[in-house]
């Protein structure tokens, strides 16, 4: 359900929205595309595609320290995108906004630069069963490097975090809590502010993997109270290969750089180098300037929409999609949390998810099938793979009906 107050939601002109996304208007296998793979990667409006092209056409040069006009333009576009991100997250300062390649790199940065120097043998990092591999593997690597331990908060069958277990697992040796804000496989919205309160009562910092939250929920890092927040551009209607680590300034200040190179230094001699200020200390090398410009444009576009109305529309899509799938015999939904974004994972009794995916594609319907980079979660549910329909605000109720019909046809093919 949406975190926006329901009474303010207004009616949304979905057709007008769709008109802004050129990729949606095409035929796949002779049928109109029904794109329901938004949790893997969303599509982008024309203004974002244009912003990237315009940047390369008119403004590109390397950023910072240039004295010529193009360098100045590129720097301004790049840094103004950073200001947009700060606004999007309600961050207090652009010094807290670090460009990364995406959520994965942002989490690795925290693992290597924040956690690694602090971790002693026997210390603990707390994650959960529902994490994406991006929020598991970096912690496995750093615990291996330091002798620390990875602890895993269990979940309930519904796909909700076991809060009692979470409290029990917050211990003397817990050095960091790293959890998804929203689960990519299940759609579960975790009670972020409550998790932060419980961890902070014990002095434990909290990182959120926000990759799936941004497209659906308002993100306010000050209200959440967390210490690190990571997200990716391509799930937020921006380009691939760009993402953000937001971190509390006092923590970032105390962290050593992760990658060394140009841009992140103030002075270099062969004996010693000194580090640049935040956020540049963490941005070695020529950055993904066009990516940042594209993401900035995407967030500006997104923030200019009536996001309450978008979320309310997504909630109706989620409700209808859930109904349609529950009504089909032999299908079972994995992830039935009370508080969900518009993601519906499901399995069929007699049909493998990959067969469903292929058959649906033939009817123009794009869904994702497989483990969704959450192998431990699917193992916990005892399923090798799920099919997942993930909706964005530009999806329509008609598309959900097409999904239902396509699924019905697929199930009929496999029936005896």
């Amino acid at each position, binding site marked *: 359900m949406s975190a926006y107050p329901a009474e303010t939601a207004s009616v949304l002109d979905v057709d007008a929205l769709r008109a802004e996304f050129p990729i949606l208007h095409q035929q796949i*296998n002779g049928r109109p595309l029904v794109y329901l793979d938004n949790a893997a990667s969303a599509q982008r409006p024309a203004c974002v595609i244009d912003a990237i092209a315009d940047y390369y056409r008119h403004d590109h040069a390397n950023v910072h320290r240039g004295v010529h006009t193009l360098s100045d333009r590129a720097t301004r576009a790049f840094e103004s995108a950073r200001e947009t991100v700060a606004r999007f997250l309600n961050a207090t300062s652009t010094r807290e906004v670090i460009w990364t390649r995406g959520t994965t790199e942002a989490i690795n940065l925290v693992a290597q630069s924040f956690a690694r120097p602090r971790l002693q043998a026997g210390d603990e990092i707390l994650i959960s069963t529902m994490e994406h591999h991006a929020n598991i593997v970096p912690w496995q690597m750093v615990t291996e490097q330091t002798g620390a331990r990875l602890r895993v908060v269990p979940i309930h069958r519904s796909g909700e975090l076991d809060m009692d277990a979470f409290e029990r697992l917050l211990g003397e040796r817990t050095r960091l809590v790293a959890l998804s804000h929203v689960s990519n496989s299940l759609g579960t919205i975790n009670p972020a502010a409550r998790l932060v309160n419980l961890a902070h009562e014990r002095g434990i910092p909290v990182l959120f993997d926000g990759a799936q939250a941004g497209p659906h929920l308002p993100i306010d890092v000050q209200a959440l109270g967390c210490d690190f927040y990571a997200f990716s551009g391509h799930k937020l209607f921006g380009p691939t290969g760009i993402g953000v680590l937001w971190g509390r300034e006092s923590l970032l200040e105390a962290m050593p750089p992760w990658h060394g190179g140009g841009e992140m230094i103030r002075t270099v001699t062969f004996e010693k180098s000194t580090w640049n200020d935040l956020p540049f200390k963490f941005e070695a090398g020529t950055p993904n300037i066009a990516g940042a410009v594209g993401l900035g444009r995407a967030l500006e576009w997104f923030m200019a929409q009536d996001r309450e109305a978008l979320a309310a529309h997504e909630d109706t899509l989620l409700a209808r999609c859930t109904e349609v799938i529950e009504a089909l015999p032999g299908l079972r939904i994995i992830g039935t949390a009370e508080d969900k974004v518009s993601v519906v994972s499901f399995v069929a009794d007699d049909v*493998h998810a990959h067969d469903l995916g292929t*058959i649906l594609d033939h009817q123009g319907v794009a869904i994702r099938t497989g483990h969704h980079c959450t192998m431990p979660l699917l193992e916990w549910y005892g399923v090798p793979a799920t099919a997942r329909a993930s909706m964005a605000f530009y999806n329509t109720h008609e598309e959900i009906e097409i999904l239902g019909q396509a699924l019905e046809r697929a199930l009929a093919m496999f029936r005896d």
Partner: protein
Amino acid sequence: MTALEALYRDVVLEHNRRPRNFRRMAAPCGCTDGVNPLCGDRLMVCLRLDGETIAEASFEGSGCAIAVASASMMTEAVAGRTRTQALALADAVSGMLRERSGDLLDGDLAALAAVSAYPSRVKCATLAWEALRAGLTSGATRVSTEDEGAPQDTWAQANESARNGH
């Protein structure tokens, strides 16, 4: 026939519904797990050889319809063939699936030709065949569609530890 009907021909659906030789073999010479960690498919292929001839082939496990049907067809197609003939057939199947130019095969196996139009599904169709190939050549007990880097046990080692009661 649409491309989809070609991929899921009745013969494929039928093999998936009622897979042949889908059982645990009583006294195999060896078994090889074919795993695709990316989609969670796992098919264990067991063989009983009589000299150089495959007397019996069976499989168990789970996978998509393409993987199961291909495995089912394979157990029928290789029984009675020599090791060399079975490996040649595995090459022919692989050729048909990976390079569309490959010769079409006789019998039920011909129905797999349509998979070549679906690059993301070729690994499904070759899974059991790769297990067969590994079993017949190196005697590996596990083969993966992804390079897992870890050394694999062989049939000989597995049989040895079974004899030692492990």
